[in-house]
């Protein structure tokens, strides 16, 4: 068992009047893939958006409770969100490359955080990030072409490379494969397997099979509550909770 990297305690999230998460207590282990499953609207995405404080963007969203990364509380007003997001990268459901060149898409983050001051340093970061995202071979000859011109799967790997470029510790993935075809999905899953050696990964997914394939730990959410969490193998073979059982066998959801 790896060390705990992220720890949430009694986490509650409200969108205006509506409560989206109820007292979530969840530990995420270092250099492991944790999958979050559950029916739509159950709070999985809301949960991972708390980890990099992306919910700050939404005016009506209020968060209470604690989240610690390496024992440091991040749900603190005085916390520097910029450096938090440098440590916690995110990949979204729909590939969202910037309307810039492939090179600029990757160098965007390092430039913002003042990394890679010379051109050659930047070149190196771009190359390494693309290599880690298994995209280098496909795009190395056309780095100045727009990132929006790539295929869906390539765009998503570009977004992963963009997240890697600032050398984070955690990568959050919000249904990263839901807009992709099976082949592109397989490539991303392969990539996640590789990335977990370096990064702590949290992935939200609607695909049970994907959760089984990529994760070591699985959490099941329902109506804003964390119903059950445990080793992926156990959750899918022998869950403690009846509701988990029903969900993974497709009886509801």
């Amino acid at each position, binding site marked *: 068992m790896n060390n705990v990297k992220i720890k949430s305690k009694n986490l509650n999230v409200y969108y205006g009047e509506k409560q989206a998460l109820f007292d979530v207590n969840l530990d995420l282990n270092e250099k492991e893939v944790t999958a979050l499953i559950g029916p739509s609207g159950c709070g999985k995405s809301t949960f991972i958006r708390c980890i990099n404080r992306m919910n700050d963007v939404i005016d009506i969203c209020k968060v209470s409770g604690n989240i610690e990364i390496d024992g440091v509380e991040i749900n603190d007003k005085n916390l520097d969100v910029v450096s938090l997001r440098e440590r916690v*990268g995110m990949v979204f459901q729909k590939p*969202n490359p910037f309307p810039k060149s492939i090179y600029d898409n990757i160098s965007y983050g390092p430039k913002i955080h003042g990394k890679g001051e010379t051109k050659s340093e930047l070149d190196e970061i771009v190359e390494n990030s693309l290599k880690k995202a298994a995209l280098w071979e496909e795009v190395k000859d056309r780095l100045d072409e727009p990132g929006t011109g790539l295929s869906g799967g390539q765009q998503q790997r570009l977004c992963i490379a963009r*997240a890697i470029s600032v050398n984070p510790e955690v990568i959050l993935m919000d249904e990263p494969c839901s807009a992709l075809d099976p082949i592109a999905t397989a490539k991303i899953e392969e990539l996640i397997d590789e990335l977990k050696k370096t990064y702590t990964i949290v992935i939200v997914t609607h695909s049970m099979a994907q959760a089984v394939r990529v994760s070591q730990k699985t959490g099941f959410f329902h109506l804003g509550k964390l119903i059950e969490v445990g080793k992926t193998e156990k959750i899918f073979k022998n869950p403690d909770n009846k509701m988990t059982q029903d969900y993974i066998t497709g009886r509801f959801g």
Partner: protein
Amino acid sequence: MNFVLIFLITIFSLSLFFYGRSKTKSIAIEKNIKLNALPKFYGYYLVLWCSIPSLVFLLIWSLFEPVIIKSIIIETAANQGAIFNDKNEANLIYEKIKAIHLGTYFGDIDSILRESALAYAKFINLFTNSKVVLIFAIVIVSVIYSLKKINKNNKARDDVEIILKGLLFVSSLIAILTTLGIIFSLLFESIKFFSVINIFDYLFGTNWSPQRAFVRDASSITAAEFEELKDAFGFIPLIAGTTFIAFIAMLVAVPIGLFSGIYMAEYASLKIRRISKPIIEILAGIPTVVYGFFAALTVGPFFRQIGENFGLTVSSESALAAGLIMGIMIIPYVSSLSDDVINSVPQSLRDGSYAIGATKSETIKKVVIPAALPGIIGSILLAVSRAIGETMIVVMAAGLAANLTINPLESTTTITTQIVMILVGDQEFDSPKTQSAFALGLTLFIATLILNYIAQRAVKKYREKYD
């Protein structure tokens, strides 16, 4: 008479709607058949058939009646022994006859005029009567025709669709034809102008003083006069003044408009947005003439005062005052359009940027604005074409003398101002001075057309990317 006819036709065709609707219902019950359309479509069908042919006939008749009567009356008068040498005299006599008929002529009435006036009265009567009879005939025929169709249970829904499609087509045709008409009238008058003044003298001349050509018939210009006129129509000072004032206006409008657009789209809370957006858009609703006297009476003298304090000579009608006020007028165009464009940049791009640790201003500067840039450029170009075409402010605040200058404190003039100056007051219609207005209009039209085209292309290119 015409209004009574139109009223009657309208009332009658509207009542036919109810008749047609109930009639078809009873047909369906009597014959025990399924109707090919809902009963109301048979009502519409009757209404359209009753009104359109008769109204179209009335329109065409009203267009041609005066022309025909006039030619008949002029011929009658000529047969009576009236003498006229050209078209103008003939028109004069016709107007006299008409006035006698209406009882508003107070001159001497000789036998020729009296006879002609009687003939006029006769023809007017004849035409009116036959118009009424024909319209009634048309209404009856078309109503009988459509009733027959209805009795046969026609596909009224499809027929109504076809008729409506036709109506819409005719409307758009009218719009297009009017536009073409305007373009061609510009074109033909400009060609007349360019047959007197060399197009290169016009395009590259640096002196604009059209008053030299005042009241001089284009056909009777002597060689000496022509030499004098040659350099009176130089376009350069006007285009220079126009671009100069537009440039000053954009210097004001682009930064303020763009920044307020960014603020509205990215920073303003919903509440502030709801209040301030309409307030900014009120600026667009202020009549330009109000801006004009504001510029001429307040801003111009204010600048002159300040200039004097610094020992500068500032003309009270200055390019600076006009450009500044024009810029303020244009702010809402830039701000509202760029607000829309920025709003349509997908949230996912912002999220992507925030997620990697960018701040709000970094995200706006490096992701949102570049993504929205084509649209922003489009909105700026639209604003430029608005600035170039703006008339009232420059007429009132920029001055009339065509100075070729880049000093914003001096008075200058624009294309639109000159068109106004040329066409107000009395003028000979075929003097080069008057015709030059059409050449200016054409040039202005082409310039704004090109700008609008580029702007729309830019906006479209942007839309394709994100829809």
